[in-house]
């Protein structure tokens, strides 16, 4: 029974997901169908309450599940992302006739997977959680099933994602072959060729999920084809899950291989920042631009892990929260627009936004500024923290790459922000609005601003995650 209690947040979310699936059948009228969203949100908030109300660290299920600071921080993060993801989706789904209970259920199930990734201390469970996170996302990518681009996105994501899972699985097999265990806590002292190879493959598998260069090529195509709110959600949740798994895996399982993985992760981080930001420069399609930006941000997130210190982990976790808010917010602004019944996904579609909806345009500028890392935003505090961690760990060159690529990113983020005010409104584009999505954008904007102006309390809270660093 006590073992189950440690999983209460996951159980609550999964229950809500199942309830939504059943409730979808009898609920017919639009008023009744509002219940679907309420049910989903209810599950998420109950899980949030359950997470925040339990403080003690424990292990359960023979040490497979661990509840500590890291678990709590990532659970809160995942649940927050799920809540914002839900409210951003609702108006879009109703508008496009896609509102089916499955959407909410899939979104919630993948959130369960992401939470489990943070709580897992056994590679077998990590793999299951990874699949629980990923499989619903493949379906969400293909959810606009009448659009060929969405089908294509789903298939692409599925094929490459399965391949990544296979790589991860193979890594597990090699690790088991060497160490005879999949328990992360017991892998610590081991070393050997098979373990090294296996650990490398595990990193590669997770790098796929997080869209880290050179395993990133799927991201722009998948995001471009997916329904807008699904792209918003997957661009964040997959990263949260992968970073959570890396944060567990690296310090616990591989302390003996420090000299091996630190330069490896640092190089991945640098390549990802460079390729992501350079790739984004050429994009005219906003979804593709945000996809490359999400790749670039995977690089910044890895910087903290490459540092391998407590500061680095806290910095990565804080930046992950900031990234979630600004990325969801930027996508959220696009969710509120449409061009002749379709998604408004080109830079020109933003034209005239400053006149049509000043609040939305101002929020968009705020998100872009935060993505660049300009104060006073959460993005700045996060990057500042990351650079501090990198310099502290002696990775001066990585910090230099980080700031240089940030300067490059000015060009494309500000082009979009500028278009919102300077360009003429494009015919056919309009602000469709929507109470729920508007609220989601407002929450994200407030978070980005507060995270930059008064980041202190949040950072202090995120510090509890640092406990996993030995």
């Amino acid at each position, binding site marked *: 029974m006590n073992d189950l209690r440690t999983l209460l947040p996951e159980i609550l979310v999964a229950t809500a997901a199942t309830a939504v699936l059943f409730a979808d059948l009898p609920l017919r009228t639009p008023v009744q169908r509002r219940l679907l969203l309420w049910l989903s949100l209810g599950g998420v908030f109950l899980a949030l309450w359950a997470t925040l109300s339990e403080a003690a660290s424990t292990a359960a299920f023979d040490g497979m599940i661990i509840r500590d600071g890291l678990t709590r921080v990532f659970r809160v993060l995942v649940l927050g992302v799920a809540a914002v993801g839900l409210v951003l989706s609702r108006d879009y789904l109703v508008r496009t006739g896609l509102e089916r209970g499955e959407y909410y259920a899939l979104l919630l199930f993948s959130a369960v997977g992401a939470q489990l990734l943070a709580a897992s201390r056994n590679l077998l469970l990590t793999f299951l959680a990874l699949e629980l996170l990923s499989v619903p996302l493949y379906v969400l990518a293909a959810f606009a099933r009448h659009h060929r681009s969405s089908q294509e996105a789903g298939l692409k994501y599925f094929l490459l994602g399965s391949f990544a899972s296979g790589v991860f699985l193979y890594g597990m097999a090699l690790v088991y072959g060497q160490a005879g265990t999949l328990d992360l806590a017991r892998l610590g002292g081991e070393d050997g060729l098979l373990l090294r190879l296996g650990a490398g493959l595990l990193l590669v598998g997770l790098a796929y999920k997080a869209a880290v260069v050179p395993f990133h090529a799927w991201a722009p195509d998948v995001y471009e084809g997916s329904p807008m709110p699904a792209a918003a959600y997957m661009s964040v949740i997959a990263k949260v899950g992968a970073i959570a798994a890396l944060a567990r895996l690296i310090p616990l399982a591989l302390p003996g291989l420090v000299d091996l993985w630190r330069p490896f992760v640092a190089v991945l981080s640098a390549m990802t920042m460079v390729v992501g930001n350079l790739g984004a420069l050429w994009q005219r399609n906003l979804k593709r631009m945000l996809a490359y930006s999400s790749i670039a941000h995977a690089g910044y997130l890895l910087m903290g892990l490459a540092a391998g210190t407590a500061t680095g982990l806290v910095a990565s976790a804080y930046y992950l929260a900031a990234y979630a808010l600004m990325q969801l917010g930027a996508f959220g602004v696009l969710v509120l627009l449409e061009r002749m019944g379709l998604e408004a996904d080109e830079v020109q579609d933003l034209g005239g936004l400053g006149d049509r909806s*000043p609040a939305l345009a101002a929020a968009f500028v705020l998100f872009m500024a935060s993505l660049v890392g300009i*104060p006073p935003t959460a993005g700045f505090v996060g990057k*500042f923290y990351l*650079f501090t961690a990198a310099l502290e760990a002696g990775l001066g060159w990585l910090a230099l790459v980080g*700031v240089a690529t*940030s300067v490059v990113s000015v060009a494309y983020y500000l082009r979009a922000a*500028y278009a919102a005010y300077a360009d003429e409104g494009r015919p056919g584009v309009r602000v469709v609005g929507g109470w729920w999505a508007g609220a989601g954008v407002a929450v994200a904007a407030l978070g980005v601003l507060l995270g930059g102006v008064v980041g202190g309390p949040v950072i*202090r809270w995120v510090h509890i995650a640092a406990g996993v660093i030995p």
Partner: protein
Amino acid sequence: MMLSALVLLPILGSVVVMLLPRREELLRAVASITFLLTLALAAWLFWAFPPEERGFRWVERVPWIPALGASYQLGVDGISLLLVLLTAFLFPVALLGTWDAVRQRVKEYLSLLLLLEGAILGTFLALDLVLFYVFWEAVLIPMYFLIGLWGGERRRYAAVKFFLFTMAGSVLMLLGIIVLYLRTGTFDVLRLLQTPLPPQDQRWLFWAFTAAFAIKVPLFPLHTWLPDAHVEAPTAGSVILAGLLLKMGAYGLLRYGLGLFPQAAREAASLLSLLAVVGILYGGAVAFAQQDIKKLVAYSSISHLGFVVLGTFVFTLQGMHGALLQMVNHGLSTGGLFLLVGVLYERAHTRQMDAFGGVAKVMPTFAALSLFIVFSSAALPGTNGFVGEFLVLLGTFRADVRLAALAAGGVILSAVYLLWMAQRVYFGPRRVDPDRFTPLTWKEATALVALILVILWIGLYPKPLLERSEAALSLLSARLHAAGEVVR
């Protein structure tokens, strides 16, 4: 509390303007009142600041991000006091002088101006390096939009160039700030000023900071963003850009470059003062060749800012005093010159010099006011410009006669191109259409008269400014000389 009020007042005003309905007169009234209240507060601070104070006054400190060691700390000393007053003075003048120039998106325009004032004041008042960086970078977004939305034809290019250049420098400073923290364990400027750093650390930290400052000033080979940004910006934007944003760089050199890294500054001084002199002559020579009046003023800025850097890096008390005063003077006179260009452009819709001629015949009052400002920029005795450049040259003579001789050549050069410009625009045969050259509006006239009064005040009686900055500069100079002995 006083200083927080000073920074927060314009930011609050900006938010209020954003939330008000689009009624132009109401918005302008709110913005004007905010600017005037800020000016009143700054003037009170100036008046209440005791001349014998060597350190910082009205210091306030609140922990901000304890995990990172960053705190919210503001304070003002004799150096920043002058720049705070200049900031609070130039904004209302710029708004008044360009009242009718902006007709579109007035709400956003005013809101951004107010935000910009808050961020600039914060930059001058911040006494914590993270906070300083936050304000320093926060200036970029409003300025980017001011250039990019209300600017001239090539505004998009100019705005992006401005942003990229400045940010490329600032991120190096960011890394410098972090390394400084890792070495000393604090971002607190008050403590850092008391903490001597080993010379080998100072060297590259100094250059990381100086990269940001030198681009902003701008120092000679890093100046290429300036002509584009100044020319394309709307008039009020040019006034703020030249009058205040460049001062942020010069202030940074004086406060942080010299204050935190005295030995490294000494080592770099000969190179930097040489570049400053090259900038003085180069800016002057290029200004001489311009047909576009606004470009002429933009290049004259490079030349005049060269004096500021020169005065900063000759390490004599007069030099630094002159540099500080020259910052204020340049803000007034070049800000004034940009206002003049704005007034002319509003009427002629061109800035080419050969389109003008005989403006004095159709707008005699304007011509008379203009000449004052031109004289001030050319540093004629009796104006503020003379006091500043004289002090810089005096300080330089004591340090290096050759540099002083070259810089003096720059003074003559600037008198030549400015007076020649005045002669071609205001005098000579009448080439302008008298119907289009309507007399100055009372708002334009008030802005210019206010500027001229301050120019004359500093020109004839600079004592209140000099005496308030004297003690702080002596302290800085004493520290520099102490550091010099350590090197030898």
